[in-house]
């Protein structure tokens, strides 16, 4: 590795030249270390910044957009929702338990430092297929890590998703989401703008752990990553819980002028970013920092990424009041510096200045314009011939339902406390999105996370757009109005033009879909280098999108299970011959290619508007979007969750010309299955015409225990409801084995 200031840094030669040029001198070792972390991909977004600019950030409800620790949106009645997503892929690949746990710890701090009480967690996970014992081991301990941490701090994990694909075998993806609520006037910003304010460091003592964690996250995993021990941290949820309560209590004093968590880049990142946002500087005395180990150098203290720490900017008039709160919770604290006029970060140790850098060089590093090139594999993959039609469609459905991608994820969410906080109205497994009520109000927040990496692989543009569309469909399915998204962009090495092309296309897709739906993107996270240096293989592009919606009143919530025999079953939207990247191709035929679904932007918007209005007018007894596994799987799941049967005429499904199997399993966008009473069906049709949406009645809910799909007079697919319940409920658990 090249040298800067006499220490090894992970910067490119050109970047090193730039540092020297901007600074006009050689930095010393401490300064070089600080610059090294701040210029890492993880902290600086140097490769992605230019591309991310296209995402729409504005909207009536946006209170705080991207650039802060979490996005803040107005949800009415004086309340705001705060949410953010973050990846913890690299640490989780090495130590799934602690990696996932500290991921939760990190994302919770992001919400907390906006001044909001964290009220829910989501997890979006990707692993290699479960036939590999390595994947099982990763999944088992990732779930345990998330559960142990989230359960302990008393924040319910209310939703999530899991995908399995060979490309995640050595690079699992662990994305975690936290949602918070606050009164609008309680929001605090990570900003230091008043010279003389005190800098207070609270929480866990600083140790040598995690030094260079961010540079590690900004690199591909290598053969000897197992030796990369400093990158793995141990979480301490008990201390975190105290930190949460103490922080919220401290904010109530009114003396907290700025607040930021210490995550990647540690004290260096927190201090420089807060100062930069406030157009000020900060003086930090590292000899004041409470330490866990002896003999730590200023370099180590400034770069440590020890967990469970927060940085407060406190009005000196209130410092005693604030520290008394920390004492009540028996949290360690130290006053480590103050805000200064000059826009620079000055680090002192035992009275001597050991680093002095302009805030700008730390907080606003130069960006890189990376090359993008469409991968050659794509055109080949799109041309694949359709496989032969299976002779037994009932068996095909059973196999899909029990496949790891589609089967019930109950094994996972049983291990998560999804009820603590008494806000969970729609819980794990009940609906396409989770719904959390606002205590004391007749209002709820809906959240869902989505991404179909198989679609994205074949068409990152429509894959990115599709992730937004699907996340919003999931919100609308429960009767909520989507109001904003955040995203987590998981890709391979951006220095490779093919990977960067995937990235650019996906972001463009997300941006275009957001614009079409008039939904802002209020935050996100980029995780590059999810590839394997040994095999050179990258993960399938996985732009995970989290959509947040508002449902009001709570009585307009819709859930997924069929409700009563005799209810009419309808399909919203049209089906196209789009089987590329489908679960049907993957699980049944082992095919990776084909023409993937594209998003029809206008149609998607109209469809969402129709379903939302129908839900609000109380016309829907059940609703579920069609995604993985297509129409057949969506119908089956609605049947499974209710224990009721269904009798459906497939010929009534509006679709372009295609085979029966294609019709049943195509994963076209902009579709929902809904059920309604006979009396309300007519209203539904009227409303559909008003919204210019295709709606077609396809069958009825039955109580005969049979799930039946007819086609042109024939019983093309017939299963006992008990059998599909068994297949879907046991499919996952059977693969995981014990506990």
């Amino acid at each position, binding site marked *: 590795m090249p040298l800067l200031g006499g220490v090894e840094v992970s910067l490119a030669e050109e970047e090193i030249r730039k540092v020297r040029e901007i600074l006009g001198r050689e930095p010393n070792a401490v300064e070089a270390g600080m610059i090294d972390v701040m210029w890492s991909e993880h902290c600086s977004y140097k490769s992605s910044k230019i591309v991310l600019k296209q995402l729409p950030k504005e909207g009536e409800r946006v209170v705080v957009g991207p650039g802060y620790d979490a996005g803040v949106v107005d949800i009415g009645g004086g309340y705001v929702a705060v949410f953010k997503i973050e990846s913890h892929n690299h640490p989780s690949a090495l130590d799934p338990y602690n990696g996932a746990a500290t991921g939760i710890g990190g994302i919770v701090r992001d919400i907390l430092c906006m001044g909001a009480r964290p009220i829910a967690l989501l997890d979006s996970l990707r692993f290699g297929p479960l036939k590999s014992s390595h994947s099982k081991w990763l999944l088992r301990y990732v779930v*345990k890590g998330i*559960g*142990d941490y989230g*359960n*302990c*701090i*008393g924040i319910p994990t209310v939703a999530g998703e899991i995908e399995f694909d060979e490309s995640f075998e050595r690079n699992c993806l662990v994305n975690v989401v936290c949602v918070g609520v606050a009164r609008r006037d309680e929001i605090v910003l990570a900003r230091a703008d008043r010279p003389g304010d005190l800098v207070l460091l609270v929480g866990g003592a600083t140790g040598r752990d995690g030094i260079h964690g961010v540079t590690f996250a900004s690199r591909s995993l290598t053969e000897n990553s197992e030796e990369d021990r400093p990158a793995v941290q141990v979480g*301490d*949820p*008990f201390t975190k*819980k*105290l930190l949460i309560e103490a922080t919220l209590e401290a904010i109530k004093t009114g003396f907290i002028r700025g607040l930021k968590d210490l995550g990647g880049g540690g004290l260096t990142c927190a201090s420089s970013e807060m100062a930069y946002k406030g157009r000020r500087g900060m003086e930090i005395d590292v000899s004041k920092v409470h330490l866990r180990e002896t003999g730590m150098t200023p370099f180590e203290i400034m770069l440590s990424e020890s967990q469970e720490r927060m940085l407060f900017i406190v009005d000196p008039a209130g410092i005693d009041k604030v520290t008394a709160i920390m004492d*009540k*919770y*028996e949290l360690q604290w130290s006053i480590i510096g103050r805000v200064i006029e000059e826009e620079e970060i000055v680090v002192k140790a035992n009275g001597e200045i050991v680093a002095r850098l302009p805030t700008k060089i730390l907080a606003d590093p130069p960006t890189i314009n990376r090359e993008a090139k469409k991968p050659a594999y794509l055109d080949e993959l799109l041309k694949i011939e359709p496989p032969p039609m299976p002779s037994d469609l009932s068996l095909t459905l059973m196999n899909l339902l029990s496949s790891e991608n589609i089967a019930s994820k109950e094994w996972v*969410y*049983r*291990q*998560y*406390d*999804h*009820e*603590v*906080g*008494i806000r*969970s*109205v729609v*819980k794990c497994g*009940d609906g396409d999105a989770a719904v959390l*009520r606002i*205590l*004391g109000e007749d209002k709820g927040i809906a959240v869902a996370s989505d991404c179909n990496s198989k679609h994205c692989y074949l068409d990152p543009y429509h894959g990115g757009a599709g992730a937004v569309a699907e996340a919003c469909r999931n919100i609308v399915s429960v009767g909520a109005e989507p109001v904003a998204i955040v995203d987590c962009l998981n890709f391979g090495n951006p220095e490779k033009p093919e990977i960067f092309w995937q990235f650019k296309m996906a972001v463009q897709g997300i941006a275009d879909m957001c614009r079409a739906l008039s939904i802002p993107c209020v935050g996100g996270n980029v995780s590059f280098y999810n590839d394997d240096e040994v095999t050179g293989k990258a993960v399938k592009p996985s732009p995970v999108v989290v959509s947040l919606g508002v449902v009001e009143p*709570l009585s307009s919530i819709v859930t997924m299970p069929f409700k009563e025999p005799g209810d009419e079953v309808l399909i919203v939207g049209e089906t196209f011959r789009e089987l590329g990247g489908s679960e049907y191709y993957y699980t049944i035929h082992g095919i990776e290619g084909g023409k993937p679904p594209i998003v029809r932007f206008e149609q998607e918007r109209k469809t969402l508007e129709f379903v939302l209005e129908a839900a609000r007018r109380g016309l829907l007894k059940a609703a579920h979007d069609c995604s993985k596994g297509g129409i057949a799987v969506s119908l089956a799941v609605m049947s499974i969750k209710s224990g009721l049967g269904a009798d459906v005429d497939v010929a009534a499904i509006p679709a372009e010309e295609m085979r029966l199997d294609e019709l049943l399993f195509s994963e076209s966008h902009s579709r929902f299955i809904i059920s309604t009473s006979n009396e309300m069906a007519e209203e539904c049709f009227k409303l559909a015409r008003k919204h210019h949406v295709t709606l077609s009645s396809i069958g009825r809910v039955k109580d005969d225990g049979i799930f039946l799909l007819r086609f042109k007079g024939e019983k093309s697919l017939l299963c006992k409801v008990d059998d599909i319940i068994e297949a879907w409920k046991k499919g996952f658990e059977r693969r995981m084995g*014990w*506990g």
Partner: protein
Amino acid sequence: MVKVAVLQFPGSNCDLDTLYVLRNVIKLDAELVWHREFKANVYDAVVLPGGFSYGDALRAGVIAAYSPAMKHVKEMAREGKPVLGICNGFQILVEAGILPGALVRNDTLTFICKWVYLRLENNKTVFTWKGKVGQVLAMPIAHNEGKYFNDEKGLKELYENEQVVFRYSNINGEVTPEANPNGSLDNIAGICNVERNVLGLMPHPERAAEVILSPYRTKDGLLIFEAMAEFLRGKGVATSRWS
């Protein structure tokens, strides 16, 4: 006016939930009390809420059991005041020796969060006098270490003294192995002290006190809080032991 304390230990996390139900649903005068500030003589009843006091270090509940606050809880128990331990609260009461036995790791070796059915076995306690023996209640559990254990002698005593209050059952009130989520001895989900003013249970009644939160549109958890509230207001079928 009667006053109920919700006792907070570092790591309690169902404290606000319990307070919400006591205040907003039951309409009792209740307040959060930090363990260091807790005094027996100020309150008419105390609830030890769920959570992970001291992060479950060593064993769930064991460190909180040594807190000076627990001396006050013991005193209240002795005075016949209602003491309710929910989940971690139950674990603390057991570790403090106020209730007998042990709560150990679930047989599944995992945390379990799910709705279960409970059969009411004893309606002669401060918290259950409004129910009928054999009545089935729906409530969620959410715990790692909720498997009740006692030795042979201890179990015999529990039954002799009518201390078994709730057992895991199916919807029909049948106490079967399939209805036992965590491997608890005899499907035991909640027990009381001999005097019947202290109840500990693993399920969460505060999460089952409003229809909107229940998958079955029930609010069975209310029974426990209402019984306590009415008892505090001087109602209920008080036995001589309680007066």
